[in-house]
């Protein structure tokens, strides 16, 4: 009986190529949309989570000036090295500090040049930023003291200027300075905000101050907080300390900013989750629309096919045989559409995840869910109207217009 039903069902599918195709298409679109959106959303979330983890210890960034509007900072006096050391010395729970100063620049090697930024640092930077070298070495104490012309480059700068060539021992030209490459940073990829973290050149702070900036200014103090300590408390302490050091009266606003990186990233992660939920909702709607499409086609086709059901009953088909045929038909269409949708969706997800440079995170739950939903729609709306028709007296089904 099942074999007969399968034979009859396949005959009907073949007999109505367009209708079968439309049904399958509805299922494919519904299933694929949900899987793609949820997979990409999951990938974005995973990426942000990984970035939070890569920040390592709790990091505070202290900058002069206040945010005034979109991307604009008020001008204010820069810090100096004494400010940085005061933070390290006077505030409890500070694990380490890393003073830095940076400027945009064009790096030139041979006939290639590349717009990037140059940052003056000392070796504390690597610890605070939780960053290691892929190869080469950090600065030596004497290089830092003397302000030697040496630099460590990020993966992007290496790729753009040196290509496949070995950068070590070669000299980069930065402004009027010729700098020997002594180290290569481990690639970090995109930041949460979407900027390329590997697009930078590091040099000893003293070299930067003397040869590039021409001042003793510090543009950024990065502070790592001891595990278990309250970043919020440290942030307040730094604010208090700097207000005193910068002689800001109680009525005035801060002319500097202390940013909690973890907080910002977590906020962004929250945004990503909201985005994922939104994508999921859109996907659910498309699944629903796909479902309604299937439902429509199934209902219309059963109406069309009531006469066919009448013929089958008149020549001796039992109700359950007619139903079995419709059920098998619906199952075959739903399974075929569902599987096609899953394959397409996974392929599209891999490609899109690559294009958006987010990880591909396979989510079996949503694959199963989307498949079951569309299969259920196909089966329910294929089966129940058919059951109604198969319960008519044959003559009534035959009379159906």
């Amino acid at each position: 009986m099942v074999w007969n039903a399968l034979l009859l069902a396949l005959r009907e599918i073949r007999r109505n190529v367009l209708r079968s195709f439309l049904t399958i298409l509805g299922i494919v679109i519904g299933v694929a949309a949900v899987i793609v959106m949820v997979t990409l959303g999951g990938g974005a979330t995973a990426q942000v989570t990984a970035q939070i983890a890569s920040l390592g210890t709790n990091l505070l960034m202290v900058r002069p000036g206040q945010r005034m509007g979109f991307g604009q900072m008020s001008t204010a006096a820069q810090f100096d090295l004494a400010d940085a050391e005061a933070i390290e010395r006077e505030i409890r729970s500070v694990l380490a500090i890393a003073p830095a100063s940076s400027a945009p620049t064009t790096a030139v090697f041979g006939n290639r040049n590349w717009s990037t930024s140059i940052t003056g640092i000392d070796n504390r930077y690597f610890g605070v930023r939780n960053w290691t070298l892929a190869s080469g070495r950090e600065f030596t104490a004497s290089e830092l003291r003397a302000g030697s012309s040496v630099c460590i480059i990020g993966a992007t700068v290496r790729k753009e200027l040196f290509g496949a060539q070995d950068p070590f021992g070669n000299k980069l030209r930065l402004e009027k300075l010729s700098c020997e490459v002594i180290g290569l940073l481990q690639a970090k990829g995109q930041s949460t905000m979407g900027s390329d973290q590997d697009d930078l050149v590091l040099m000893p702070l003293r070299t930067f101050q003397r040869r590039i900036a021409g001042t003793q200014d510090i543009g950024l103090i990065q502070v790592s907080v001891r595990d278990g300590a309250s970043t919020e408390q440290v942030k307040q302490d730094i604010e208090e300390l700097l207000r005193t050091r910068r002689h800001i009266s109680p009525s005035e606003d801060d002319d500097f900013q202390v940013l909690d990186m973890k907080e910002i990233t977590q906020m962004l992660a929250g945004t990503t989750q909201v985005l994922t939920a939104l994508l999921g909702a859109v996907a659910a709607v498309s699944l629903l629309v796909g479902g309604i499409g299937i439902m429509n086609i199934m209902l219309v086709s059963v109406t069309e096919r009531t006469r066919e059901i009448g013929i089958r009953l008149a020549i001796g088909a039992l109700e359950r045989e007619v139903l079995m045929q419709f059920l098998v038909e619906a199952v075959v269409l739903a399974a075929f559409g569902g599987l096609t949708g899953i394959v397409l969706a996974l392929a599209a997800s891999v490609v899109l995840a690559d294009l958006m440079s987010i990880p591909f995170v396979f989510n079996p739950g949503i694959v199963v869910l989307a498949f079951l939903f569309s299969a259920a729609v196909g089966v329910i709306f294929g089966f129940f109207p058919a059951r109604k028709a198969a319960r008519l007296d044959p003559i009534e089904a035959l009379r159906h217009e």
Partner: protein
Amino acid sequence: MSGTDSTARPLLELQGVTKVYGRGAAAMQALRGVDLRIDAGEFVAVMGPSGSGKSTCLNILGCLDTPSAGSYRFGGVEVGTLSRNQRAELRRHYLGFVFQGFNLLNRTTALENVELPLLYRGMHIAERHRLAREALAAVGLAGWETHTPGELSGGQQQRVAIARAIVTAPDVLFADEPTGNLDSARSREIMELITAFNRERGLTIVMVTHEADMAAFATRRVHFLDGHIESDTRAHDFMETA
């Protein structure tokens, strides 16, 4: 075999059968107490004006429809006591139908249409194809197996429908105006075919027709008028002089 032998066990027997369509003010009494017995081997032509209840009666006899009241016995079995499935089994094993509108499955080949009743009997593919080909050959359609109804003329479609009705070797063939859509030459062909099945295979036939020409092929004529049987005449001449 004899359609006129009153001691023969009746194959089909209606007693006081009525059929009402709709309810209340809109109720329409299509049959008003029909008594009819048909014996095995008879070829009955059902005649009468339009709306007199011919199709309604045939559909009840064919177990496609159920009477509102009265008794219908098929081979001694009270059909009213059978379940839907049992009635379907009855149609499957003993009855064949030819409809006025052919009622073939569209976009399905003649062979597939004809083998469909065999498929529901669970017959094997080889046997199914052999019988379906034989039935198509019997109605003069050898070589047309792969044609779909859309590619066949009205007469050919009706012959496919007849092949489908007789392929299971039923005990009774019901035909509702089988020649209603055909010209007179095609009609004669179909009637000769049906008559041959009656004479050669002893197939019991109940056929609704408007035309006296067609009724002339039958061994018995039942006239309906306004929901009941007005006259019932046997063509003794045919049986006795043959």
